């Protein structure tokens, strides 16, 4: 999802301070005014507006999916998104990878003293937008302000709650040999958008983060079949990590067809320059699923009708060979291991 928040016609409310002060997190009157002026208008809903210490809600009688994640991305604003929509989408995605419909989100903010009110407002606006897109409601939250240097600008933790439809059982461990592996679109957009926007690399690119909530797409897939054997969003560690997790959790081998993996030319170029393998780079709006062969066409079809699945492709197959490992095929027809990355991806010269 790309929300250019700078064009939204919602100016920063008049605040007493241009920057966030320690007192804004102290629980006193400054805290109250920050919540009232900046936070409530964005996440306007009955549960939050009561400003209780907790949200009390009715839930349908069903199994629940529950997930939490912290967001510390640097830079906080990057092409295609910011830490705000990332926090909403990331948690919505973690919840919906079980097949669940994400419903409620909590959000906790740790803000560094001196952080620009304007930036906070921008982040909240994009959270509001992302929440609407994903159909989730922020029902409870918390704000703390820490001393300068105790955190880097702003950290956000979101927790999400969703309901799992009857008959849906998706985990990373359910893959059967013969299952096809489907990827919903291009890889490495988010990681390369963030990396190339770091100032010391002086890049000019059109690469945009792919941050998006995938629950709409998941819903379409589940409507086609509940027989999805595994599903995950390949975030940190990239596609290679997720496929390796699939292989080891399900104790199958995965045969990867690298040529089928969609990647945009810009991203490919940036990866070449920096010597980075796109298979190891983070995505924030993509999913990988294992689907039995007789369902694969229908699922692909459904995915391709959704804006976030237009480039969906079969990128591999679960096999009985090389259990626990992912193998690709080289251009000479030799099989090669596709490993997980060891640590953070670093630009290299050799």
């Amino acid at each position, binding site marked *: 999802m790309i929300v250019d928040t700078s064009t939204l016609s919602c100016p920063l409310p008049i605040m007493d301070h241009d920057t966030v002060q320690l007192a804004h997190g102290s629980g006193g009157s400054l805290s109250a005014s920050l919540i009232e002026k900046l936070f409530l208008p964005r996440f306007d809903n009955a549960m939050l507006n009561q400003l209780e210490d907790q949200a009390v809600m009715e839930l349908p009688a069903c199994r629940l999916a529950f997930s939490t994640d912290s967001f510390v991305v640097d830079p906080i604003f990057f092409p295609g998104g910011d830490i705000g929509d990332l926090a909403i989408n990331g948690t919505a995605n973690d919840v919906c990878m079980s097949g669940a419909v994400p419903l409620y989100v909590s959000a906790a903010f740790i803000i560094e003293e001196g952080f620009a009110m304007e930036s906070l407002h921008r982040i909240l606006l994009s959270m509001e937008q992302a929440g609407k897109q994903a159909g989730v409601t922020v029902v409870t939250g918390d704000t703390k302000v820490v001393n300068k240097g105790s955190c880097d600008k702003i950290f956000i933790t979101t927790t999400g709650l969703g309901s799992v439809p009857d008959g849906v059982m998706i985990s990373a461990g359910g893959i059967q040999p013969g299952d096809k592996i489907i990827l919903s679109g291009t890889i490495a957009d988010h990681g390369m958008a963030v990396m*190339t926007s770091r100032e010391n690399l002086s890049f*000019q690119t059109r690469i945009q983060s792919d941050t998006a909530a995938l629950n709409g797409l998941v819903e379409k897939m589940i409507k086609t079949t509940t027989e999805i054997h595994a599903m995950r969003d390949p975030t940190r560690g990239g596609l290679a990590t997720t496929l390796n997790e699939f292989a080891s959790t399900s104790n199958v081998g995965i045969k990867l067809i690298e040529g089928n993996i969609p990647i945009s*030319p810009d991203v490919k170029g940036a990866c070449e320059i920096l*010597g980075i393998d796109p298979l190891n780079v983070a995505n924030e709006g993509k999913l990988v699923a294992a689907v039995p062969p007789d369902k694969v066409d229908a699922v692909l079809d459904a995915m391709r009708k959704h804006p976030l699945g237009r480039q969906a492709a079969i990128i591999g197959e679960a096999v009985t060979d090389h259990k626990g490992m992912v193998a690709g095929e080289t251009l000479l027809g030799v099989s090669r291991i596709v490993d997980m990355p060891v640590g953070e991806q670093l630009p290299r010269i050799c």
Partner: protein
Amino acid sequence: MCLAVPGKVIEIFEEAGLKMGRIDYAGTVNNACLEYVPEIQVGQYTVVHAGFALSVINEEEAVKSYEAWEELIETASQSGDGRYDDQLQTIRDLKENVEDDD
């Protein structure tokens, strides 16, 4: 050693007294120092390593390589089953592409 990537020079400028260029790698653009390739022109390709252009890509030589490939594949395709037709077309396109670019 020495990862170096081919890209096209789309602009030449000066920064802190050094000859610099904007290099386009299939859409992603980054700056590189052109001090060691003083003869380079906008539109030419270069290989860049650690922010420095190493040499200007020799298009004539590149075309010669394509021609050698063409020959290699032509001899292979004389079996006449058309297996390599696409391949030949790709190489011919590459050749023309280089020639057009000037």
